[in-house]
């Protein structure tokens, strides 16, 4: 460094705070865990989902039947419904449970030995349906439908034999229509997924912001710092930017990893889309840098007023939820994307990414709005923090 040419004070503070934060192994570990875990989890869950969606429509339900010889019609009706029936000898309850825990059998149908006797005597003949509701092989509905139809058939035949029309047995007829399409579901899912990608802006810089303000106050080193020939805003800006760096790194890692994961998965299979190029991802990222500026600024402004690290941390963990409120409201109220959404920090970033993922042509304004609304909020937060640090009341409380 040339003599007489001094490093700006905020830069001195910034470098020191960043160095200290990078030496805090525990908070670094948490940042790493958080940024890596979310994309990994996302990839795993979506992969599972795709896997289930692309499995052949009806592989056939494996059903074990005990005493099936007593009801050959039932067995053949089950087979007609594409249910694979295997005859089994008598089994105890535990053996049945064991069978259901196995990889293949979805349900067990047990006809007690007195089934034929009751059937012949026209007494209600009991059929036991054993299933495991905790298992994901859910064929119960299909089997119950067959049993229902079987019962109705027999009842009709018996009524007919007595000269009564079987139609009396069916005063109403239910027909099921399922309109739930994957596309409708995907809109909610994708906005939820993408919304979480910006949370690191609030998580990753938090510990640095808290440690350099509330922590410094708790350790009683802030008074010394404030007696140095540096202006309050220089101290605030240095501490703020150190937290910003960590937040930006967190968001960047999260976005890049999520991009890699989402581009790699065949999302079309479940009606989701991720039509994002590296170029447009960069633009979204750039427009989102101020979100980290805002998050860290807010955290510094709040944490500097707390008396201890713990106090600041508990207040801030609650505050992480606040920026999520607008996006939660938008998804609960099912609002269509509108211009104002780009003027709300966090919601704007989520909306921007969501629309980009759909492949929409957005133009310049949404990007600029997203950038500016957070940048403005960040400036306000930092200005407030500087004003607060300058006040005599704050000096006295230090």
């Amino acid at each position: 460094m040339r003599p007489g040419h001094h490093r700006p004070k905020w830069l001195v503070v910034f470098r020191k705070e960043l160095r200290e934060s990078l030496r805090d192994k525990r908070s670094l570990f948490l940042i790493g865990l958080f940024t890596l875990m979310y994309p990994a989890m996302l990839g795993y869950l979506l992969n599972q989902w795709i896997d289930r969606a692309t499995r052949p429509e009806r592989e056939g339900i494996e059903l074990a039947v005990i005493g099936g010889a007593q009801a050959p019609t039932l067995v053949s009706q089950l087979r007609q419904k594409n249910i694979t029936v295997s005859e089994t000898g008598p089994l105890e309850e535990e053996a049945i449970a064991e069978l259901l825990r196995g990889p293949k059998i979805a349900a067990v149908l047990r006809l007690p030995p007195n089934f034929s006797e009751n059937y012949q005597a026209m007494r209600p003949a009991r059929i036991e349906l054993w299933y495991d509701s905790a298992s994901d092989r859910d064929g119960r509905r299909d089997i119950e439908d067959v049993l229902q139809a079987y019962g109705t058939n027999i009842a009709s035949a018996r009524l007919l034999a007595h000269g009564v029309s079987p139609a009396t047995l069916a005063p109403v007829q239910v027909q099921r229509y399922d309109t739930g399409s994957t596309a409708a579901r995907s809109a909610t899912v994708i906005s939820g997924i993408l919304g979480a990608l910006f949370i690191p802006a609030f998580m990753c810089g938090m510990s640095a912001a808290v440690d350099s303000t509330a922590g410094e106050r708790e350790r009683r080193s802030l008074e010394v710092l404030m007696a140095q020939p540096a202006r309050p805003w220089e101290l605030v800006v240095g501490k703020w930017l150190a937290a910003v760096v960590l937040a930006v790194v967190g968001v960047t890692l999260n976005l890049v990893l999520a991009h890699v994961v989402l581009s790699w998965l065949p999302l079309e299979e479940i009606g989701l889309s991720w039509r994002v190029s590296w170029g447009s991802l960069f633009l979204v990222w750039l427009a989102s840098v101020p979100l980290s500026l805002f998050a860290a600024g807010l955290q510094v402004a709040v944490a500097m007023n707390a008396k201890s690290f713990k106090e600041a941390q508990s207040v801030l963990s609650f505050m992480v939820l606040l920026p999520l409120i607008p996006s939660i409201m938008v998804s609960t109220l099912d609002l269509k994307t509108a211009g104002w959404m780009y003027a709300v920090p966090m919601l704007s970033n989520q909306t921007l990414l969501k629309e980009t993922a759909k492949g929409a042509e957005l133009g310049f304004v949404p990007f600029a709005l997203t950038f500016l609304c957070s940048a403005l909020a960040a400036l306000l937060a930092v200005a407030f923090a500087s004003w607060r640090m300058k006040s005599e009341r704050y000096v006295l409380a230090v």
Partner: protein
Amino acid sequence: MIEAHEVRKQFGAVKALGGVSFSARDGHITALLGPNGAGKTTLLRTLVGMLKRDHGSILVDGVDPEQDPMRVRANIGFLTDQFGLYERLSTREYLAYFGELNGMGGAALRLRIDEVSDMLGMDDILERRSKGFSQGQRIKVALARALLHRPRHLLLDEPTRGLDVMSTRAVRHALSTLREQGCCVVMATHVMQEVSHLCDDVIVIAKGHTVAQGTPDQLCQRTGIANLEDAFVHLVGTDEGIAA
């Protein structure tokens, strides 16, 4: 040279300083004596411009700390009752941080850190992080920080508290050296022995007022009491807050 005239400061209904006047000369060590709660901390904070006075005037080498706090602070080494160390920084990094905040840098800063470290005998802890430092080591680091930028003025709040005999001697020796170099040293202390051995001037404040200023001998003469401690108690009008 620090000159204060009729400095008053009130927090709400509490009158912290009710009229403090004194002058601390260059090349002199001035003791600031007063029972706990007499307003010493408020006075020191007002001198560096962290607090604004309600009344009166303060000049540090002719500069008002309220008008130009940055210039005044650059010329003051301030050791508060808190050391303000950072556990994740080594002593050298800690000193470099405050050196840079005071506009130092490069080779000059490195050289000065070694110099101060020599002066206070702290070579063994220079490269260590401050976690686990003893009270004596902590106060040495803090004192080194206060001396680092060669301030013309030193405001020290109990600089020898918690130090063992060897470290106390090292600190006193360092203060004598600074006096010879022409520094204006103001130190708050409760150790009467230190005052009579080390200090040229004594300011006694009680309940926010200057009660007396002069050399230790002058104070004894004025009260007609031979022992400085008894003279101090007499001036303050109570025997509270005396540690030694």
